[in-house]
């Protein structure tokens, strides 16, 4: 949100994105018609269960879809420029400079045979025109700002000499080095312990705010999302089923899937003998049912759901939901 009351500028606009994987056993429509907007300075959570397509959305924006996957259609506009079908040499300039990424596993996203200093320096060499001394100063400042002490010495250390939480700090430092406009963080704290997770989430939120950047936080953990983001987009079987401001989505979602997800989290303030559960499992994405993808697991499903695919429409408050029979405020699924 901008402070002066003006409409904040849209940084990223995704329209009808379709990323499909052509496998021997059929076409996997991992992302099938996803649209969303992200304003400058905004943090959006992209949530859903495994197989929902949330990571594929992130990879599509980064232009990191490899065969047999392909972006079949749709637009990805970054500050007005459509990068959905941009050539690789253009994407190389965008990745790191305009869009930075933070992945789940900090051990595999750092190169084990190079020092931290070399990996940080590479980012600045590619994306800035600083000289060697300037780059080193920037690296040290950045490491200090993510809470790594004795930064100058630590530049000479290798990734294996850091703990998991420290490695993730290094990854964040590298991501922020070139002052990107957009950060895509894919399950950044899933591999970390809860006390370290809370440190890292606070750090990411502060860094994003300080640099005036926007962030897409991809996670399966609604509790993590609810503490960090401004708005939430919920994916199921490669499609957006609900989106809205974080408070509305968490406390009063209108799609039965979101309601079910939130109800199946044990709530320490209101302990029930049994948890509410969503019956069944996610359908095979190569062989989706006709009509609504969620209808086989949905307690509200009726004949219409088997016939007609629901479109994303405004339901109430800030919520948009793809459901023929949306949940009313305060109602359970």
């Amino acid at each position, binding site marked *: 949100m901008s402070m002066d009351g003006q409409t904040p500028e849209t940084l990223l606009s995704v329209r009808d994105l379709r990323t499909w994987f052509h496998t021997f056993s059929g076409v996997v429509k991992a992302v099938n018609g996803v649209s969303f907007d992200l304003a400058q300075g905004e943090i959006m959570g992209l949530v859903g269960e495994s197989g929902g397509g949330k990571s594929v959305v992130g990879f599509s924006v980064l232009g990191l879809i490899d065969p047999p996957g392909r972006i079949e259609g749709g637009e990805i506009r970054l500050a007005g420029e459509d990068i959905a079908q941009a050539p690789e040499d253009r994407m190389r300039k965008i990745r790191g400079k305009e869009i930075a990424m933070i992945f789940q596993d900090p051990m595999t996203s750092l190169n084990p045979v190079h020092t931290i200093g070399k990996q940080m320096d590479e980012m600045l060499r590619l994306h800035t025109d600083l000289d060697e001394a300037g780059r080193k100063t920037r690296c040290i400042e950045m490491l200090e700002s993510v809470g790594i002490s004795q930064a100058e010495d630590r530049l000479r250390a290798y990734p294996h000499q850091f703990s998991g939480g420290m490695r993730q700090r290094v990854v964040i430092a590298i991501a922020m080095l070139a002052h990107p406009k957009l950060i895509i963080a894919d399950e950044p704290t899933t591999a970390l*312990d809860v*006390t370290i997770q809370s440190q890292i989430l606070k750090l990411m939120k502060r860094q994003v705010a300080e640099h005036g950047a926007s962030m897409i936080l991809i996670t399966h953990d609604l*509790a993590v999302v609810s503490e960090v983001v401004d708005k939430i987009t919920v994916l199921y079987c490669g499609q957006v089923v609900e989106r809205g401001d974080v408070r509305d989505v968490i406390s009063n979602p209108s799609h039965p899937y979101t309601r079910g997800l939130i109800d199946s989290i044990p709530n320490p303030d209101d302990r029930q003998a049994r948890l*509410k559960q*969503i*019956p069944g499992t996610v359908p095979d994405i190569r062989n989706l049912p006709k009509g609504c993808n969620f209808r086989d697991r949905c307690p509200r499903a009726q004949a219409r759901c088997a016939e007609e695919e629901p479109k994303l429409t405004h339901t109430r408050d800030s919520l948009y939901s793809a459901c023929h029979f949306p949940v009313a405020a305060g109602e359970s699924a």
Partner: protein
Amino acid sequence: MSAMLDVEGLEQRFHLNPGFLDRLSFEGGRPRLKDLVVHAVNGVSFSIAKGEVLALVGESGCGKSTVAKTIARIYEPSAGRIRVEGEDISEYGHADLLPVRAKMQMIFQDPFASLNPRQKVRDIVAEPLLQQVGEGARAEVADKTEALLARVGLNAEHAGRYPHQFSGGQRQRIGIARALSVNPGLIVADEPVSALDVSIQAQILNLMMDLRDEFGLSYLFISHDLSVVHHIADRIGVMYLGFMVETAPRDTLFAMPRHPYTRALLSAAPSIQPNRKSDEIELTGEVPSALSLPSGCCFRTRCPFAWDRCAKERPVLQDVGGGQSVACHLLDEPERDTL
């Protein structure tokens, strides 16, 4: 009546065998070979009554899974006693353990790694029982297997399939059926729902609670997820660096955590409930290495209240009433608790 499980002073140390040069050090000019020992569990005691669910929580490396695996006698304990229904199994050999397996079974975290990919589901579920009753009773075992699969929500058609044909949640159901096949009184469950999506996690937790009521099971439930633990446990033990720092009944622990680490853990846990946090101890730094434990209190390097006594003297669990025990020097000097 004796407890279902009674653990006393359990210790587990792992000797690392690094190369000669890694172990070599010089002290005052004289060469010396160090012995590298991971102190995974350092004197943990607890007991579980019949039908009770005890959860052990803590962060990675706190020794909770090692406790589970040592109790299941996958590891040999370095010291301490493990009694199952009063029977001391801590020094049992492989053959002695077979009858114990009928009383105690385990459910594992990874539903992909814990099922043999080359066995059909019916054979996976039947195996523990066949070990107990012998090959002669195959027909009865087959009937029981079918009944068990139905009980955990799988059908007869599933019995002839292989593990790779199932989703994570279904595989965990197979693991549960296998554990139940011998009618055990105690199930040691090591992070049974952490690999599952939240909607599937709720299904499995509900199943485990139903089975407890139906068969009168006791669970030793290992988890890092406080909201899961709050849902399933009757009593909770909090571990840090191989030590038990606090044990308490569930509601007491969540309402009145006493140990600074428990308080930090509760305040760090993300929650979908806004403004739920009352106590806010924010931890800095990271867990020390189990290769060289800090002197005195294990938590002092990250504790906001630590003073010189904490470095000198190791606190022991003290009963503070209401079934709660805490290992912290703050109990003696509460005025130092400045929050």
